[in-house]
């Protein structure tokens, strides 16, 4: 990979005019073109080869059924009346779509969704901008201590979150933000190691000459970032944004620590559903109205599935990039 990295600028030369060139190159770096290149089908299949393929397909279908069953179960359960939630039928015996209306009067789901969307948008936007600034600093400028500092960035990726859990709480407490949602997105203003790493990889794939030429034309460092690097890096921004949106949307522990003591209206969806699980649990005096939990679980999952439908490639490439280059 490193050879490819150095070869990049040299090969492209001063092809600044060809504006799609760097983007293409960057795409390549993120593995975007690999699927096509990989489609070497190899030699024609023998009859035994066909049998092998069919067996593999059968295995994959069986695995798919196992992976998808909980979704089907959840969808079915969300339409069932209280007494039938547990019956494991994938087609509800009694079809009760009113659950989807009642859940909003049973639980402050709109407020939770609003909170979660706001927090996830703030976190994803801030972390994308801050991480790309930092990544650009590491990718394009030479300064004393750069490699050591970047090593520290990578090392913080390995740091268990539990270690800083208590002091971070105390810091937010000192600042008076416990009980608000600020701690759920505040730290994203300072970048995040994983995203810094990801975006630095991306910036390094852009031809350096582009920035040299811009500098000779009198563009300052900020201009080089804002007018050249930023517009060219949309693909990596999408990856970072989607990842952070998902992780913020998912975040139960922070909500539990910072919002649990407050009013239920201030909860995020994960915390809200956790509280609903307790509320309806027969063990704690609930009526076992799990159909509402199921509806809420489906509603919290849907945005992620929609996000995945649009950003599928970004998610999978982002994950694959970490693993193969990390």
């Amino acid at each position, binding site marked *: *990979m*490193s050879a490819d990295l150095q070869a990049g600028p040299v090969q492209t030369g001063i092809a600044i005019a060809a504006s799609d060139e760097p983007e293409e190159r960057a795409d390549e770096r993120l593995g975007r073109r690999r*699927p096509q290149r*990989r489609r070497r*089908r190899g030699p024609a299949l023998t009859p035994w080869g066909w049998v092998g*393929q069919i067996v593999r397909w059968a295995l*994959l279908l069986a*695995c798919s059924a196992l992976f*998808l*069953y*909980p*979704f089907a*179960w959840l969808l079915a*359960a969300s339409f069932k009346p209280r007494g039938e939630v547990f019956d494991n039928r994938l087609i509800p015996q009694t079809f009760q779509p009113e659950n989807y209306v009642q859940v909003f009067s049973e639980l402050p789901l709109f407020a939770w969704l609003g909170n979660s969307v706001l927090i996830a948008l703030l976190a994803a936007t801030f972390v994308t901008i801050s991480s790309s600034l*930092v990544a650009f*600093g*590491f990718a394009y*400028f*030479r*300064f*004393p201590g*750069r490699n050591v500092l970047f090593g520290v960035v990578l090392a*913080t990726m390995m*740091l*268990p979150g*539990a*270690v*800083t*859990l*208590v*002091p971070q*709480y*105390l*810091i937010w407490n*000192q600042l008076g933000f416990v009980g608000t949602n600020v701690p759920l997105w505040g730290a994203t203003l*300072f970048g995040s190691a994983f995203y810094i790493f990801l975006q630095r990889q991306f910036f390094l794939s852009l031809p350096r000459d582009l920035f040299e030429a811009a500098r000779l034309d009198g563009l300052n*460092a900020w201009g080089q970032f804002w007018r050249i690097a930023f517009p060219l890096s949309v693909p990596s921004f999408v990856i970072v944004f989607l990842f952070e949106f*998902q992780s913020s949307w*998912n975040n*139960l*522990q922070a909500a539990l*620590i910072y919002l649990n003591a407050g009013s239920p209206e201030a909860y995020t*969806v*994960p915390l809200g559903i*956790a509280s609903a*699980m*307790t509320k309806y*649990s027969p063990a*704690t005096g609930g009526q076992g109205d799990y159909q509402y939990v199921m509806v*809420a679980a489906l509603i919290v*999952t849907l945005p*992620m599935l929609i996000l*995945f439908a649009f950003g*599928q490639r970004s*998610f999978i490439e982002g*994950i*694959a990039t*970490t*693993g*193969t280059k990390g």
Partner: protein
Amino acid sequence: MSSTTAAPSATAPPKGRRRAKPPRVRMTKLQRREAIAGYLFISPWIIGFLVFTLGAMVYSLVISFSHYQLATDTARPAGLANYQALIEDPKIVTALSNTLYYAVLAVPLEVALALGLAMLLNSVRRGAGFFRTLFYLPKMTPVVATASVFLLLLNGSQGAINRGLGALGIDGPQWLLDPAWIKPSIVLMTLWGVAGTMVIFLAALQNVPRDLYEAAQLDGAGAWRRFWNVTLPLISPAVFFNVLVLTIAAFQVFDQAYLLFHRDTAQGSSDASLFYAIYLFQQAFRQFDFGFAAAMAWLLFVIILLISIVQMKVGNRFVHYESGDPR
């Protein structure tokens, strides 16, 4: 870049004489400006690191040697009292052994299943992308949704999993009640979202040059030998990465255990689900014993660090990096 700008002036002294000196001065000035710009760009991270990482770690070390009172925001020095309590608390041993047990069970199963699925996907000629997408859907599902579904699926008497096992003639266990089955039930939930690990393996497998397999086949290597001598060495960096990351994650398992077993503070729950991160959370945010919790966090940090170092030492021996450059 600096060498290319300096080169002309060095090779053509008569012509570049007028320019020979100024570039040198300008370079250092430029270099300084470049350095300042670099520092400015990374300054958000530096501030965040100093406050939320390094500062927080130092703060946590200080707190671990004191009795911290949240209400008054005072920290009475405690010496080693928190660490003393840590050693004497039998629940720490329980939490640690539960966590270790979970990690030993979960990590190999995750790696094996992810690698198996990735190899299966890599071996079909059509439809790999489609199945990869399907397998990835659980990974997109918020853990709170996963937990609320599995809470019902794993129900001992009516749950779908035991019904399914019953249809196969197997008498399913009381997943959520029997202490022996609590950890396997969390492993099961984790395995449902194994696609993240699988995608990393798949990317690594796709980078294995096909001609190596053909060469091995010509040499008469069977499927097992091809896997052992070609595939495994070439994807060993991905194996290493996944083991390292999954182990660190396993030692911090929290969400699923909290949602299934520790949501409700009124009810006591079985010691079998008391994981380290759960106990730390309870000590910090239910008992507000921040000193003890900070000491716990440092113990966890040291344990994870030691395990990571051992894994890296072992990894260095077995991981094969192509082209000699690890990154």
